[in-house]
């Protein structure tokens, strides 16, 4: 168990390792309807959230879906 620093939408926070993307989403109560998660410039497929481990200094962007036109 180790505290790691990550960046979410430009803000630095610390979380306890090991933590998967799925656990992180649950822990942060990200509940914005449709969204995608970009880690270090790569959108993570939804089916891989469970197996995607968050690492120290990961730069995470929660991209909220835009539907207007």
């Amino acid at each position: 168990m180790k505290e790691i620093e990550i960046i979410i939408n430009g803000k630095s926070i610390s979380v306890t390792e090991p933590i998967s993307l799925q656990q992180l989403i649950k822990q942060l109560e990200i509940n914005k309807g449709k969204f995608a998660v970009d880690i270090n410039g790569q959108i993570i497929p939804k089916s891989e959230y469970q197996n995607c481990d968050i690492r120290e200094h990961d730069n995470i962007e929660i991209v909220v879906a835009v539907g207007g036109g």
Partner: protein
Amino acid sequence: MNDEQLLRYSRQMMLPEIDAEGQQRLTDARVLIIGLGGLGSPSSMYLASAGVGHLVLVDFDKVDLSNLQRQIIHSTPDIGRPKTESARETLKTLNPEIKITTIDHALDEKELLEQARLADVIIDASDNFRTRFAINKASVESKTPLVSGAAIRFEGQISVFDPRNDESPCYRCLYNDDVATQETCTANGVIAPLLGIIGSIQANEAMKLIMNIGETLNGKLMLLDVMHMEWNQARLGKDPKCPVCNHF
């Protein structure tokens, strides 16, 4: 191509990447544009003026006063008219050379698939997620490239999904269709020139797909924040377990 056509398209035909061959491809192309609002206005106007031979315009709505701040294909005297009719008139004035087909009702699944099959490129300029997922499915099933654009408030998103390429993600790889979200310009507001930027990029991507030149936004999601004037790009791969693009 006659002299008048040569002159009309001369400033793009002088680009070696386009030339007569590219112009011919544009002339022979058919583009399905869904939605004639804030995004469909600039994208259809640029595709018409650039000489895309056949535009199929789909919208069931009528022009409303509250549309005119951003939907620049329609004008004040058009209030109350079907958007397809008003759009056809503007596009025909811009370029009488092209063919325009209008559909003034919402397409059901079968009609949408049929139109997708007939098109070389689909432009998603719709304003709701239900339509976006339906268009994506038709794109995947018909293997017709989809240029997806969306905007709300001060934010825009654009990507190209190209099911002709087996490695290409689809819109459903990006977003889930099981949660209800209401993110429309009508409900949330939008700054007008943002739609011009996103719609113009959609037209630009569609032209490149038609002419098969350059590199598109396939496999990339482009994000624009016009409040802080920041562009961001993320790589977007196929979800190996996507319920839509793994079926076809």
